[in-house]
């Protein structure tokens, strides 16, 4: 039976199908061409290297829907939506082509037993998934989920597709039973007593409703939030594989470090983020700035750029586009990002929010628009090479009381060059901890040295503020100093320093890259190799805060935990741990900024609240100098001095060494 074989007022079905297909394809293609046109007007960026990794990403995150499972309720349903879509889309094109060209010697997809069975099973799974999705939207919507009318339309459309197929199968089942159509059979058993002609008419009607719904869906997709369905596979395919939240824009033809203030100043990949967004709100839910009651919302940033593209991108010229800061994105919210990367960690379509935000910060910096406290710090780093605005000569003041003296790696060869970062060296609250770390290294017989006054701020946060020029300068200076020193590996104290040295300095000696280690990795290794003995097990219950730039950025989760275990500490995890760790609020230059608007609860305060809620835990262990500063403050402002104290992991190791 050919469902296309109908006749409406003398017009044959096949012609109707041709007309409907043409209309649908017209709207679909017109929009796609326009959107591709927008992307072509954007700045160039090479995302075509490492093809193998791109394909692996595609398999994991598109076909495997890996990130979607981050939220359990909707994880499996969306998995079924995706595969249902793929399967039904395949079946649709098959049937459409068959219907448009009646002379083709092939059956319709549902006339092939195994395909019919698969369609029915998928249909049922998708219907169940829709029920979950609807219940979630109505009864337990997560915060920041966009309850748009768009979503209602899409869910209804999907439901129509599934129901029409199954009912069609049911009516078809009354004509001839098939072992390949169990669901159809069940429905058919409820349709006893209808005539053959009614059954045929109903089957054809459902076929047409189904195909019209798909054609509508097709035309509607690129106009709706379901654009993500077309854009996100490419977004995943072209993700930056070299490092998380990479700020190096690989573009030979144009200098893109001047930043962006309007859509056509972003790279095409930056814009693809906006088209890929499914408005699920996971990034917003994870954002420490947003949760503190600040106006920044990562999803909204991408959305506003999309809005501007739609408003001005379809015109032929790029002139007259207003700055995003004029009405869409406030400068204030851009400065609120801590670059903690929670948003990117959560995003199921692998959107890259941080490079987009930093791009806009770069623009502002290039205009000289930066708040006074940050300007002061940038000028201090420019002049003195450290964010504290102290003389170079003070950098190694903390070593003066140590015996034996710490080697000067510029004068003596060492195995490890230790780069402490500014906070560990200059902050009087932290120098004692840095000394303890040094004493641990000394007791363990580690061969290490420092650069003394030649070390400069590594520029990790400078870069994230958007001051690319200054980043390049401090990087050059540090590399020059390192080239004068003799060493094999690098240890860092500050995870921010760790991140940039490891991923952005591209250090190498004689063609071999120099490995960069966080001090927790080194101490863990020293313990495992029995380089020092734990004389005093601490026997306390403690929790550990994963620094963003150590954990999420660089995947160092286990070494600190292993250290804690080996010194006798019972680790009690906070609900948000490892990749879901909650930022202390210091990153991305935030530590140098002041809160302009009243804040509901600072990220560090929120985190302290989480830590004190743990049973019988009175120690919060950290592995980042900035965490000590942030959390000591937060403990005071939340009045939790009696309940919890913050300790650097080095302090505990030192204590355990006895």
């Amino acid at each position, binding site marked *: 039976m050919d469902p296309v074989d109908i006749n409406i007022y003398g017009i044959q079905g096949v012609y109707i199908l041709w007309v409907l297909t043409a209309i649908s394809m017209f709207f679909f293609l017109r929009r796609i061409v326009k959107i591709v046109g927008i992307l072509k007007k954007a700045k160039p960026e090479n995302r075509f290297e490492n093809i193998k990794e791109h394909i692996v990403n595609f398999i994991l995150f598109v076909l495997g829907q890996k990130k979607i499972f981050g939220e359990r309720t909707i994880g499996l349903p969306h998995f079924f939506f995706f595969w249902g879509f793929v399967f039904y889309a395949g079946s649709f094109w098959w049937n459409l082509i068959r219907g448009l060209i009646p002379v083709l010697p092939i059956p319709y997809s549902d006339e092939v037993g195994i395909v019919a069975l698969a369609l029915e099973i998928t249909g049922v799974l998708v219907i169940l998934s829709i029920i979950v999705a609807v219940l979630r939207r109505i009864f337990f919507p997560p915060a920041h989920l966009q309850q748009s009318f768009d979503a209602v339309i899409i869910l209804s459309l999907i439901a129509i597709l599934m129901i029409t197929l199954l009912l069609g199968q049911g009516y078809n089942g009354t004509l001839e039973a098939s072992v390949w159509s169990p669901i159809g059979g069940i429905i058919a058993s409820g349709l006893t007593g209808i005539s053959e002609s009614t059954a045929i008419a109903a089957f054809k009607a459902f076929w047409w409703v189904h195909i019209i719904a798909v054609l509508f869906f097709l035309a509607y997709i690129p106009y709706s939030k379901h654009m993500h369905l077309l854009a996100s596979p490419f977004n995943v395919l072209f993700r930056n594989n070299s490092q998380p939240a990479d700020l190096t824009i690989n573009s030979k033809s144009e200098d893109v*470090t*001047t930043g962006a203030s309007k859509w056509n100043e972003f790279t095409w990949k930056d814009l693809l983020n906006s088209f890929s967004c499914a408005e699920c709100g996971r990034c917003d839910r994870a954002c420490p700035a947003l949760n503190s009651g600040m106006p920044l919302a990562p999803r909204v940033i991408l959305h506003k750029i999309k809005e501007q593209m739609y408003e001005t991108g379809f015109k032929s010229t790029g002139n007259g586009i207003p700055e995003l800061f004029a009405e869409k994105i406030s400068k204030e919210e851009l400065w609120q990002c801590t670059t903690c990367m929670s948003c990117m960690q959560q995003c199921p379509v692998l959107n890259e929010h941080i490079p987009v935000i930093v791009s806009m910060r770069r623009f502002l*910096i*290039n205009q*000289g*628009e*930066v708040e*006074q406290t940050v*300007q002061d710090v*940038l*000028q201090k780093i*420019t*002049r*003195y090479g450290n964010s504290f*605005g*102290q*003389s170079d*000569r003070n950098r190694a003041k903390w070593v003066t009381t140590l015996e034996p003296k710490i080697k000067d790696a510029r004068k003596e060869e060492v195995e490890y060059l230790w780069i402490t970062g500014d906070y560990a060296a200059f902050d009087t609250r932290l120098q004692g901890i840095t000394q303890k770390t040094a004493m641990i290294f000394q007791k363990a017989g580690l061969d290490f040295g420092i650069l003394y006054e030649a070390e400069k701020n590594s520029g990790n946060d400078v870069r994230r503020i958007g*001051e*690319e*020029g*200054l980043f*390049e*300068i401090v990087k050059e200076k540090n590399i020059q100093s390192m080239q004068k020193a003799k060493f094999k590996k690098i240890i860092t104290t500050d995870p921010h320093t760790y991140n940039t040295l490891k991923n952005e300095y591209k250090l190498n000696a004689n063609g071999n890259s120099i490995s960069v280690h966080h001090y927790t990795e080194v101490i863990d290794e020293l313990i495992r190799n029995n380089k020092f003995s734990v004389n005093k097990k601490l026997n306390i219950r403690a929790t550990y805060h994963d620094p963003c730039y150590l954990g999420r950025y660089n995947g160092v989760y286990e070494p600190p935990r292993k250290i804690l275990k080996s010194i006798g500490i019972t680790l009690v995890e906070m609900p948000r741990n490892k990749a879901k760790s909650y930022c202390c609020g210091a990153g991305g230059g935030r530590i140098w900024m002041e809160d302009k608007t009243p804040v509901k609860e600072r990220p560090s305060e929120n985190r302290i609240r989480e830590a004190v809620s743990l049973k019988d835990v009175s120690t919060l262990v950290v592995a980042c100098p900035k965490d000590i500063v942030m959390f000591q403050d937060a403990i005071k402002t939340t009045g939790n001095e009696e309940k919890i104290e913050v300790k650097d992991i080095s302090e505990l190791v030192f204590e355990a060494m006895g």
Partner: protein
Amino acid sequence: MKFIVFLKMVPDVIEELKIADDGKTLDSNWIRMKLSECDENAVEEAVILKEKFGGTVTAVALDAPELDDALFNALAKGADKAVKIVGEWKDVRSPAIAEIFAKYLRDNYPIDNQTLILSGSQSIDDIEGELVYYLGELLNLPAFGVITHVDYDAGQNRISLVKEFAGGLRGEFESEVPAVIGIQAAEKPPRYIPIAKIRAIMKSASIEEVEIPLDGIPSGAVIDKLFEPETSGKAEMLEGSTDEIIEKLIGIFSDKGII
């Protein structure tokens, strides 16, 4: 308007200051030089005035270590021309500096009724802010120090100024142009100049050098001796309960013969 800003470098007190063996100067091995803070404000104010009223800004500075950075910074901010004055003189003070600047103007920069001369209102080696007044005297122009606001009336060709006095008082002045103005603070804090912009300026712009001969420059005051502050007394913290502190305080008062 033609804005001319006179600048000079001063020792950076963030770095350790050491007195040289002659006992009269700072050890140049140790010091780093930077633009005086008021001078930075003077550059900013000149650029702000240029943006408001049009014209050109010329930054003129005495040669010193690290001066080029400061001049390129001024160019990146919006100055149109940067001039470095070189000469045989060494360790000059305000009267001599004023003389050098005045000489520069006489030979290179004709002053007309569209010229406004700016400088920092004081610096660590010009504590009284005397430079501006010396300059005014030498050029025979009205001079104003400690200025925090400058406005210009093009129709009248007059400037109005706000001058800060001690005790939070302010005075409003009006003057004809040309005039010499010592800037205490620009209308807005000096803007941030991104490194990329400074680097671009370094490639595209150049600093003009002008030599001013040594002869005829008065030395002014001469330093006999430079020394670090001497400790003359110290604070003592009284500790203990309130009663104990009162007890100790009474003891101290009676020892000193106060009670």
